């Protein structure tokens, strides 16, 4: 079995990694069926392996953004100004705010949701779920200390994590 620390291939059942001495005894037992809530509290957004976000500048045309989303198959883009996150634009925004209107070269700034709820990369998954439930949204951008977006977590990421955990 591979040592979780140094990846050395040890014999099955070894207590200590032959190479680096790391304790292997937690790595090979089935984890007790702990409280799922407890797990969510213990796990961080990093554990969802959130995707890198697509970002457009606030001045960019909304039609450009929609085209981008359509071509790349994503349902949400982040909106930045000078690198800092200022808004989020999802397919729902497109349906609710744009459909029926004449699309034109209007900046995405006019259609985005301003100042979205954000999280840090090491915030617990439970917090993300809570915010999504309370706020009714499916995406939460992840930012660093300087407000720069570093990732985006979507409801479907959480769903996949649940499926993997339970399955």
């Amino acid at each position: 079995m591979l040592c979780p620390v140094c990846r050395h291939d040890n014999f099955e059942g070894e207590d200590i990694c032959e190479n680096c001495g790391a304790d292997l005894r937690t790595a090979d037992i089935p984890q007790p069926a702990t409280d799922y809530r407890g797990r969510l509290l213990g796990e961080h957004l990093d554990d969802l392996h959130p995707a890198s976000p697509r970002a457009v500048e606030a001045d960019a045309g909304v039609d450009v953004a929609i085209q981008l989303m359509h071509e790349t198959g994503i349902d949400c883009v982040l909106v930045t100004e000078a690198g800092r996150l200022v808004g989020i634009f999802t397919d729902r925004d497109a349906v609710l705010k744009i459909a029926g209107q004449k699309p034109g070269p209007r900046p995405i700034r006019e259609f985005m949701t301003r100042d979205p709820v954000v999280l840090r990369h090491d915030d617990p998954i439970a917090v993300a779920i809570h915010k999504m439930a309370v706020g009714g949204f499916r995406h939460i951008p992840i930012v660093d200390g300087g407000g720069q977006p570093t990732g985006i977590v979507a409801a479907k990421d959480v769903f996949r994590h649940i499926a993997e955990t339970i399955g």
Partner: protein
Amino acid sequence: MTATKERRVPTQELERVTIRFAGDSGDGMQLTGGQFTRTAAVFGNDISTLPDFPAEIRAPAGSLPGVSGFQISFSSADIHTPGDEPDVLVAMNPAALKTNVQDLPAGGALIVNSDAFTQQNLNKAAYASNPLTDGTLKQYTVFEIPISTLNERSLEGLDMTSKQKDLTKNFFALGIMFWLYERSMDPTIRWIDGKFKARPVIAEANTRALKAGYAFGETTEIFHTHYRVAPAKLPPGTYRNITGNEATALGFLTASKLADRPLFYGSYPITPASDILHQLSGYKSFGVKTFQAEDEIAAIGAAIGASYGGALGMTASSGPGIALKSEALGLAVMVELPLVVIDVQRAGPSTGMPTKTEQADLLQVMFGRNSDSPIPVVAPATPGECFDLAIEAVRIALKYVTPVVYLSDAFLATGAEPWKIPALSDLESIAVENWTEASTFHPYDRDPQTLARKWAVPGTPGLEHRIGGLEKADITGNVSYDPDNHHRMQILRREKVAGIAADIPPLDVFGAASGDLLILGWGSTYGAIRSAVERLQAQGRSVAHAHLRHLNPFPRNLGDVLGSYRRVLIPEVNLGQLSLLVRGRFLVDAIGYNRVRGKPFRISEIETEAERILDDIE
């Protein structure tokens, strides 16, 4: 790195410190202990260690049977034991605290990872209330440190999951200890760089955690002193840390090279001897043939068969396995072939306590066979001596063409000490030649000096002969039921073993050649006895220490040595086996000190018993 506060903390010089690290699976206490040991050794302290493995192969996280510990004693003087009790206990979780705190003396230092004292963990450790707050730890000096949190914080920004970061907290703890005892982090940092070359993020994390722990020690206000233990004056040479089982395996490999005979090792897995099989099976490039047999008897059978063919046949086991091998051992005595049988003793009887030490197989290996069936017995006293006595066992086996028993125990097997690596050029050859001359050959014709028989191996032309378990005529080796012949052969076999006494060094005495009390020991009680005697001699008491490495035959001056003291004390981790032999053979009223708790003796208990006897004489 954050700026450190300028703090002047006084340094106290100590002669000896004993630290016990205790934690859960995942806490990495063996690694922490090992790194501290290495650093102390490289710095020049004399060290002695004792790992304490968990009772179960796997246990749920945080539970009592999952606790593992590592005790290290380091000193500026020559030390012989891993310490009667720790000065500092580092407990990484409540279960570790619960299982170890009773060994910490009042006033001892207790360092705990306060982050781990959650309600869930307290429940798992069967604590009704939190010991950190309910006052039950007030006789210790407690340092509550949120090691997990501080560690995680120190690793901010690194691309690792929380779980991965948590695995590095043992380095944080190590860093604290390094600061506390003024140890350099350099050897560990070099080790980290070497081991994790392929995973730079892990290397970075471990190093950061280590330094953060050190920095914590430096800046926190909870420690008011730190300590220095100066290097010891060890004899010059190249050293490595070695456990008894490692030394045993290396010793027998070396012995086979010195004897110029290929090593054949047959054995069956049994705690605590299995590691010898694991290690020897890694020596294929040395021509070592290892064989995991279907049972204990097949193991010794194969070893005898290999010896019959001229190889160096060996087998190892622990008490219950030695019991199974007794018939075959008797065959080896009767046919007179060289063979080494290792017994890594453990607590018995029967299955006993497989991971706990004892030295209660002496009478079994001396007498546990039908009829009078004498076998030479040797017993190393320290992990390092496991190497030397291995060579001695093979020397005797080949020179006298006889099976030999090598008595080790669980304490020696897993305990470690620094070992001065010998130069091979300093080691003498122990090779013997097989008989090849047909005209003068009879299989049970003997060398007049050693009484060893003329040993010829299959494949030697013209010397075809048969050997077996039936009694055989002197010289010719043909099956014989002649009454006088049997008596003569029994005497010859006895004399052959007894005659080895002329070939082994006289017993050495540590102390005056005569006096009030002699403490006589064998096997792994060496450390505790020697330390106790050193302390008593420093107080001016008339006590000396002698330690047997050869249990059969005894050194030729043992009788004289025993007679030079008014009292003889024989401490043993058994109910009085060497005592029985000494009393029976020398008619000496030896006093036994016998405790069979599955643990090595503490220095203090030997000291107390010796004082009791000395005071009683006056």
